[in-house]
């Protein structure tokens, strides 16, 4: 009986836990409850991925109202895959959260912190699971509002302005999305994505449809921090509490990429999206600009969190680049990098949480000699960095490999060069870290002072996942390829 | 017979109310200084609101609608004098005097 309700439980379980957090007075219970909710969500996501893999699309009608009248949850391999990414990152991050929160956030705020965290998770899961266009907007706002609150909790006062800036840009993005959805509704009279997909070809010539597409694209790009709309991201990631940085870096932009994929491929259909606008060229241009500009910016940062935030913008460039190829290998690369980048960035930000825990800050001066004083933490940073560069035997290599293959397939040799050059730039900023950590000694002679195990173990879980999934690729590639084929299969029109 | 009388009364009230509200609105626009303008607005708010709402009450007859109308009237009658009182006091405190205001207004327009 339970198994048929999994799609909705996926979202509702963390949602129930959120108000409960507010009622709990014991701080130890808070963490246990949040972790349990997240873990349960992860297990459900895993089960859903299995179900979707074996039986195709799972449809769940909420309230018992059939699809276009009521709201439908529609899970296929793509959703389930993204759900798994979000829940697993969230779970591992929560594992480390307890210690880090104790240090960074005053105790009176813990119930509300965990509550906001779970609400953010709920929002992200809701966006991913739903098959209703307006429902996307509602859950988008849940996740956005809670993430504004989470970011503002950073200790630096700049966290407040970062949060404000994100609030303004995020709301503009959400309003654009709202306009787009409204125009789609105006043309078809429906809000269900599947239903929209079937009704849109009839109005494909409409100028209104083109304008709807433009608004959705720009709105989602704002949420996705696609270059040049990324301005909110570096500040938001830099000044938020470490745990929040790790969580958001691993999940928020990934879900936005998912929404973009969903709208381009499922709702509009690749045929429409890529024929009405020179989408391939636009995506490739923006992606290349993101890779070059953000990687170079990253090199000049003195705050390591900010460095990795810029690197996130660059990595999002790779993810977007894959969409532009409009081929199975390109999309596979996109989806792989979605997972892999989530793993890398979560690992790196968690390692930075360890550094912050001991050093109090994450400037370059703080990592001097860290190879000696915090060897495990620093090793995690180095391995995560190598994965970012795309060194073989790490996950970063796999996704870059697919990307290069996709580029060669279509004869875009310039892009191949740019991808490799981007990796070189990544190597430069990772090398700067390595140099500071291993070849400089800190000014004061610190004794060896490793981060507490409760922080270190989750970090290393992610680092090891980076390596393990870089060697045994069957899990991720299998799901990614299946999802990519499904997306392109839909491009032909009609349902699979 | 009674019905016709009531409907005439209602019409008369509505017409008077709308005429007065127009007149006072012109007053609000044309009067020279803040205090006279406030007089126009304050009287218009209470008097016109009373007339128009009573006109509507006569149209509605006795029902839930009447009750709602009377509550609306109650709120309006509380709001407007409160606001006028507060405004006058604040303006006075801020140094606006009836004579002085004229100069300020004319120099501004």
């Amino acid at each position, binding site marked *: 009986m339970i198994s048929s309700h999994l799609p909705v439980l996926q979202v509702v379980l963390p949602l129930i836990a959120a108000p409960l957090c507010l009622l709990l007075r014991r701080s130890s219970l808070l963490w246990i409850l949040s972790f349990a909710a997240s873990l349960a969500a992860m297990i459900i996501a895993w089960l859903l991925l299995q179900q979707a893999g074996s039986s195709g699309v799972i449809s769940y009608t909420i309230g018992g109202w059939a699809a276009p009248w009521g709201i439908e949850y529609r899970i296929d391999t793509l959703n389930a895959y993204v759900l798994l990414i979000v829940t697993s990152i969230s779970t591992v991050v929560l594992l480390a959260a307890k210690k880090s929160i104790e240090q960074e956030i005053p105790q009176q705020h813990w119930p509300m912190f965990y509550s906001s965290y779970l609400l953010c998770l709920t929002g992200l899961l809701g966006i991913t699971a739903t098959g209703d266009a307006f429902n996307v907007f509602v859950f988008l706002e849940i996740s956005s509002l809670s993430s504004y609150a989470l970011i503002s909790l950073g200790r630096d006062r700049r966290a407040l302005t970062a949060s404000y800036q994100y609030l303004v840009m995020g709301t503009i993005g959400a309003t654009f999305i709202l306009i787009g959805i409204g125009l789609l509704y105006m043309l078809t009279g429906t809000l269900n994505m599947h239903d929209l997909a079937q009704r849109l070809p009839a109005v494909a010539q409409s100028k209104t449809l083109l304008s709807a597409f433009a608004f959705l694209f720009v709105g989602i790009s704002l949420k996705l921090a696609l270059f040049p709309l990324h301005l909110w991201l570096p500040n938001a990631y830099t000044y938020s509490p470490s745990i929040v940085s790790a969580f958001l870096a691993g999940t928020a932009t990934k879900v936005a990429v998912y929404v973009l994929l969903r709208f381009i491929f499922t709702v509009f259909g690749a045929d429409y999206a890529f024929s009405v606008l020179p989408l391939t060229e636009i995506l490739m241009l923006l992606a290349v600009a993101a890779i070059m500009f953000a990687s170079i910016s990253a090199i000049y940062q003195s705050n390591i969190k900010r460095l990795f935030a810029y690197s996130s913008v660059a990595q999002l460039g790779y993810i977007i680049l894959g969409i532009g190829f409009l081929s199975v290998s390109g999309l596979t690369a996109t989806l792989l990098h979605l997972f892999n980048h989530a793993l890398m960035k979560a690992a790196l930000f968690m390692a930075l949480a360890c550094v912050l825990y001991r050093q109090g800050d994450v400037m370059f001066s703080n990592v001097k000699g860290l190879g000696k004083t915090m060897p495990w933490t620093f090793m995690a940073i180095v391995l995560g960095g190598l994965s970012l560069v795309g060194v073989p035997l790490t996950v970063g290599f796999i996704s870059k490999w697919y990307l290069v293959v996709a580029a060669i397939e279509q004869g875009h040799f310039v892009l191949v060069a740019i991808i490799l050059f981007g990796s070189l730039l990544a190597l430069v900023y990772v090398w700067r870290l390595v140099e500071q950590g291993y070849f400089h000694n800190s000014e004061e002679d610190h004794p060896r002072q490793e981060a507490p195990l409760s922080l270190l173990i989750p970090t290393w879980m992610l680092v090891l996942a980076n390596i393990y999934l870089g060697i045994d690729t069957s899990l991720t590639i299998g799901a990614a390829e299946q999802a990519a084929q499904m997306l392109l299969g839909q491009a032909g029109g009609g349902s699979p | 017979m009674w019905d016709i009388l009531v409907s005439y009364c209602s019409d008369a009230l509505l017409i008077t109310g709308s005429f007065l509200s127009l007149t006072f609105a012109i007053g*609000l626009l044309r009067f020279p200084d803040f205090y006279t303008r406030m007089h126009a607005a304050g009287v218009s708010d209470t008097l016109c609101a009373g007339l128009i709402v009573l006109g509507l009450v006569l149209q509605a007859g006795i029902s839930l609608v009447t009750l709602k109308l009377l509550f*609306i009237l109650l709120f309006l009658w509380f709001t407007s004098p409160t606001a006028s009182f507060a405004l006058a006091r604040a303006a006075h405190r801020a140094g606006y005097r009836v004579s002085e205001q004229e100069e300020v207004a004319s120099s501004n327009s």
Partner: protein
Amino acid sequence: MILAVTAIALLVAMALTLVRALLGPSIFDRILAVNTFGTKIVLFLGVYGFLTNRPDFLDIALVYALINFISTLAVLRFFESGQLVMPKDKESR
């Protein structure tokens, strides 16, 4: 018919009030105009309900009146806190 005339009269009155709100010149004139405008729109909605034969929608006018009252009090409190009293209250226009 009479109702329509009343509605139009109220609309015109609203327009005139709006002009005062925009012209100022002092902040007090604006507040005054805004307040009157609120009253007018409540009356307008009441009349509009009768005009469209659905007087049960008076609920909305009632909410307006209530909200108008409360926000007037909020403004009043703002006054009392001394924030509004500024040396020379003139717009840059």
